[in-house]
């Protein structure tokens, strides 16, 4: 279960200028739930995602995941929390363009130093699942946008995380690939993962397997 309690997030641009990205947000997402965050550009969707992933800390309020105060974790523990619990599909994918598909996918496993067969097993599982096996040795830079996204999804799933987060997953895809992604999402939902997606793509609205759509507006949640 993910809980955001009285979350405020402000960014200080300089001494006198502040941006209030989130303003007293309260939100609870249950285990296995698929939630879509909707809202205009700049409304605060990405900020919510990065707080859930402990990529940033709230200015005030608490983020609680499985009864643990994520927002209070020291940096190193936040990393471990991400590694063990979060699969993040970034808007710009955030792959390392000069590495191969395989090397990108196993990146979250590297600090764990697992036995070689375990790496191969996990790699094969996600590469097959997200249909990128045939490109395992290709350099990511040379892949198409859709392929790059599948690598990003594979990487996010390689540790089999409980929580999946996707930020504008279809922003860089054409309609066919976007529908493809929605099918992938359906499969992931079937695996009983908690999924949070930020998007303003209408393709995501009124999908049968989406549990909830949440409107974000000017840093506030509109119920």
């Amino acid at each position, binding site marked *: 279960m993910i809980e955001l309690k009285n979350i405020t997030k402000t960014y200080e641009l300089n001494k006198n200028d502040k941006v209030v990205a989130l303003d007293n947000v309260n939100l609870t997402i249950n285990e296995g739930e698929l939630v879509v965050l909707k809202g205009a550009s700049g409304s605060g969707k990405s900020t919510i995602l990065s707080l859930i992933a402990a*990529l*940033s*800390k709230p200015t005030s309020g608490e983020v609680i995941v499985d009864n643990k105060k994520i927002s209070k974790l020291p940096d*190193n523990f936040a*990393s471990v929390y991400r*590694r063990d619990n979060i699969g993040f599909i*970034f808007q710009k994918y955030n*792959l390392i363009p000069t590495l191969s598909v395989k090397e990108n996918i196993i990146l979250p496993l590297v*600090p764990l*130093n697992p036995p070689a067969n375990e790496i191969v097993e996990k790699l094969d599982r996600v590469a097959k699942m997200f249909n990128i096996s045939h490109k395992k040795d290709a350099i990511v830079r040379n892949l198409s946008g859709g392929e790059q996204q599948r690598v990003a999804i594979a990487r996010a799933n390689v540790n089999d995380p409980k929580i999946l987060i996707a930020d504008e997953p279809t922003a860089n895809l054409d309609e066919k690939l976007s529908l493809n992604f929605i099918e992938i999402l359906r499969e992931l939902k079937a695996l009983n993962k908690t999924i949070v997606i930020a998007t303003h793509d209408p393709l995501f609205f009124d999908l049968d397997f989406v549990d909830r759509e949440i409107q974000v507006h000017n840093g506030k949640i509109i119920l």
Partner: protein
Amino acid sequence: MKNKINVYLIEYAINAILRQKSKSFFIVFVFTLLTFLLTSVFFITNSIRYELDSTVDTLPQIIVQKIKAGRHYDIDVDAVDNILEIAGVSDAVARVWGYYYFANAGVNFSVVGIEQYENQYKNSFDKIASKFDLSEIDSKVSMVVGHGVKETMHDSYYKEYFNFIKPDGTLKRVNIAGVFEADTQLESNDVIVMSKDTIREIFDIDESKATDIVVKVANPEEIPMVVSKIKLIYPDTRIISSEDLKVSYQNIFDYKSGIFLALFIISLFTFFIIIYDKSSGLSSEEKREIGILKAIGWRVDDVLKEKFYESFIISFFAYTLGVGFSFAYVYIFQAPILQNIFVGYSQLKTSFELPFIFDLQTLFLVFFLSVPIYIAATIIPSWKVATLEADEVIR
């Protein structure tokens, strides 16, 4: 399992080096050059210092020269008898010698005269006196030469004899009787030994004159006392003690190494530019990469470990390469170019063998001057980025 070396991390580090080919190549190049120069200088310095120390030990304790208006003139041989009478003096020998400029090769030879019944002031000359029949050298007008001299003469097709040009323009033919060995190369390389009579003829020095007088003192403590007494009897002389010589040898040497120091500073400068460039901040791709690694679950120390491997591999590789090149350059190829900067007291450009002195201290010194500095210069900026909020870095 926790303490097992993480091969994936090392693999990633090697990958990171290979991914930025031109940058890595540049770093390895400059780094190798730096360690190469640094190590070579130390190697050469060590070898020469070793030679120098052994040479200084063979120097005469006191040399007396006649000076007129600051210029060196030939001294009266009679002075030897007077000096011998000074208390503490165990021996005094009038030397006849000079620098002979061999225009053909553009080098100077040190031509030294020795005599059969005279005590020699250098061990190496004693050896010559015992090895060669000096009376024969005298009658046959011949000479014994150092290795460098022999090679220089050979290069000009003088194999059996050499023609010296006397001050009046006529030639003096002197046979090469043999090549002599000395304790140190610096001492012997440019030296020619012949009879005093022959030298007198070549340099046009009168029977009653000598180039200088070398004095032996039984008790080295008494050298300053003897020096001041000679000065009293012969105020028109310059008196050089072995201590003075040591200093001036050192001066020549240090001056020459100064030229090299300049070269070294230039390369050091380049090295620090790299370090500056690195520590002044990472490129946006490098920052982003660290941010991505953090975002997918790497801890700060995972990132730093990777950076450590990366910088250690590249700097240690370059260090090894530089030291290897330096070994080959100094001891196998005998340090061409650099050697000329350091050696050649009488401008004799001949093969001077650098004695091999293996010095672990030098290797450690160069290592600590380069590798840890580079590693720190890599890790510190990475650490700065890695401790930032991941969200800030990848946004």
